[in-house]
């Protein structure tokens, strides 16, 4: 009887090991698979033209997605300008000033906001920005993405500020600093690695959002001057080109996807580098 039990046990062990191992491999390989696929299909279309020229009608060569790249940049810049300060200051309030119950409530609501589907945020932005302005715009796109950035900014700020040891605050106040001075001269600088990387990850996350932009920035085959015109953006362009019936547009879509992925990955990697360098500097 013992031989059977041992055999069964060993079999289960091996089975679990294989199962979990394969799952892990799957997880790891998916990223490389996507990257590889995009590289394979998109690298051919990356060219000087791609980064500098406007889209050309199908069949014509020499077109690019310069307007989408610039458009994404403008939208993301505006989103950062809206989302980061609001989230940052709210995070400071939660971490440093508020009472326990109020902080809990605000955190809860922030998490709910984070869970709102991005397309709903897009509709919301449409209602409060696009309709009054009476047209789609870069500005509206920036607003939508900015709203999406707020909850993560709040949570990141609060988390990293709370992780700063109380001893530093005490040290600052014991020298005659009032609370605000202590926060801005000691606590925030102490958390700056975490805050910076947190904001970068936040940006990387919204960089790829497509749904909100459909209702706000819409799209544009030409340059979008200023902030109140509709604007092309990388994710929307990928969508539009991918569902088109033209092969050369498909190629451009691959390339755009590659660029977008490269952008997001590099922001991620940089953010993590900042975090790890930071923790070695502050060693005790």
């Amino acid at each position: 009887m013992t031989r059977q039990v041992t055999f069964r046990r060993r079999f289960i062990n091996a089975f679990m090991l294989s199962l979990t191992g394969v799952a892990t491999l799957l997880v790891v390989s998916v990223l490389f698979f996507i990257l590889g696929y995009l590289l394979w299909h998109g690298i051919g279309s990356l060219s000087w033209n791609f980064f500098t020229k406007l889209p050309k009608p199908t069949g014509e060569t020499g077109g690019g997605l310069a307007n989408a790249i610039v458009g994404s940049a403008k939208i993301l810049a505006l989103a950062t300008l809206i989302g980061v300060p609001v989230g940052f200051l709210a995070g400071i309030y939660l971490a440093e000033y508020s009472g326990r119950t109020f902080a809990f409530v605000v955190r809860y609501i922030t998490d709910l906001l984070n869970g709102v589907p991005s397309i709903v945020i897009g509709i919301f932005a449409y209602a409060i920005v696009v309709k009054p302005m009476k047209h789609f715009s870069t500005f509206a796109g920036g607003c939508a993405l900015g709203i999406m950035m707020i909850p993560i900014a709040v949570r990141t700020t609060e988390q990293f500020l709370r992780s700063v040891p109380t001893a530093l605050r005490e040290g600052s106040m014991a020298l005659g600093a009032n609370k605000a001075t202590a926060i801005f001269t000691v606590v925030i600088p102490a958390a700056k690695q975490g805050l910076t990387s947190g904001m970068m990850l936040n940006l990387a996350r919204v960089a790829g959002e497509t749904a909100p932009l459909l209702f706000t920035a819409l799209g544009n085959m030409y340059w979008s001057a200023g902030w109140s015109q509709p604007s092309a953006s990388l994710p929307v362009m990928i969508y539009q080109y991918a569902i088109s019936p033209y092969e050369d547009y498909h190629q451009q879509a691959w390339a755009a996807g590659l660029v977008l992925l490269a952008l997001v990955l590099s922001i991620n990697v940089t953010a993590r580098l900042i975090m790890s360098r930071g923790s070695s500097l502050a060693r005790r």
Partner: protein
Amino acid sequence: MATPHQQLQPITTRPPAELTPPPSSAVPKIRAQHLNFYYGTFQALHDITMDIAANQITAFIGPSGCGKSTFLRTMNRMNEAVRNTRREGEIRLDGEDIFKLDVASVRRRVGMVFQKSNPFPKTIFDNVAYGLRINGVRKKSIVEETVQLSLERAALWTEVKDKLNKPAGALSGGQQQRLCIARALAVEPEVLLLDEPCSALDPIATLKIEELLFEIKNLTTIVIVTHNMQQAARVADYTGFFLLGKLIEYDNTRRIFQNPSKKETEDYVTGRFG
């Protein structure tokens, strides 16, 4: 025959040095009167009345939880940062009620060094200069001079003068604590409070800090809380013994350790309890 050393001189007699009693002079540096302190419903300090002498080292000793740290932190109003606390009674600094003064100005005049050293994650120079800068001193030459002077007074200058721009976190534990002392001294406090400053340090680092306290005594009044009563014996001019939130005995250090008046004090210093 051997010749004598001395000249023939009459010599007047003098009594041995009197043990000077603790001050009850006109205006002591800090005077606490009938101070009671509560954490919620728990009373941590019972009717504390004592005078702290200027330019002397005063130590508070007593077993854990006796209130000595609480009392210390009341003197620079650090206790107010804790929620749900209540205070009755007065503390006067040079005659002024500290609870009526602006809290930041009280903390400028009454500095504090903590049990675990807490240098900011900045450079050594910026750490010491911090107090100056937030109090409005911007002129580069003044800041540099003051930083050097403070580091010299904290017996740290020779060890760090070539690496002022390195992060403070790279220093050893004892050096970091001396850095915190330099940082506190830079704003020229009238009183320096030290809350068990050596409890996390090895004996040699402890000795360096004790020696520097002797050196800076004439610059500032020093109040030190220590759970190591031998440290109080070595260092302090006056010692107060606390027990369960009450001040049991407060006297010249020599009397506390040689001939205390209260039995509880005697039991504590001889190690019978606590």
